[in-house]
């Protein structure tokens, strides 16, 4: 063991904890353990599935309504164009 190792032994010598350390450990060890209520895992998983399924259904409904709106808009545009063509054709006949 050289000088550095001897110094290291001195520098890293054991130190005593605070005087009341042992008594505090004993107090904590003898304290009654409070039961911690935890939600069952299956319940958390079921809740997650329900939320995801609900979100999925909601999104599908939203997409359906958007498609319906677009279709109605397309029908309206087509109807206006058909009316104009009809008027034009009737004008040629006269």
């Amino acid at each position: 063991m050289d000088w550095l190792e001897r110094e290291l032994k001195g520098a890293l010598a054991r130190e005593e904890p605070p005087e009341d350390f042992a008594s505090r450990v004993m107090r904590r060890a003898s304290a009654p353990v409070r039961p911690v209520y935890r939600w069952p895992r299956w319940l958390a998983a079921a809740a997650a599935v329900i939320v995801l399924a609900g979100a999925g259904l909601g999104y599908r409904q939203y997409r359906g309504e958007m498609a319906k709106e677009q279709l109605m808009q397309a029908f309206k545009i087509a109807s206006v164009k058909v009316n104009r063509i009809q008027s034009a054709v009737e004008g040629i006949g006269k």
Partner: protein
Amino acid sequence: MIELQNLPETALDFADLVREHQSMVFSVCWHFLHDRDQAEDVAQEVFLGLHRNMASIQSAAHAGHWLRKVAVQRAIDAGRRRARRPQVALEDVAEPVAHTPVRDPMLAEMLRRLIATLPETPRMAMILRYQEDLDPAEIGQAMDMPVATVKSHLQRSLALLREKLARRGVREEKWTG
């Protein structure tokens, strides 16, 4: 008549184990974490863990090994949670005044600070080697590590410390005066 069985675990008194091993557990945490409050918290948790596992402890020696191993693990975990490894930056280590003989307490403090800058695995290996006077095989058991790896960490750490001390003008001849 009921014959009393001399079960080993019943012979172990938790309070005695705390008193016997408190300085070892506390010092491992303190030298590793460099934070007295945190070291005390971790050391308390180690003993509370022992209290919960008293049924599986077979002897006083077993309790000592158990405490050392758990103290090592808990101190490393606490250091990781703290997420700022060298609590004392190397640059903050006090430089000795040139041509002034290095005094023992000053060198000891410098060594503790330099060890605090080592990565966690070699730092813990050095603490177990020089605080607990363990040989590499025992350190390997406490840290779940091959003996060759422990030896390598110790050698590299010593070389690094020598280099850093030399850069600060601390050499054997100065120390010995």
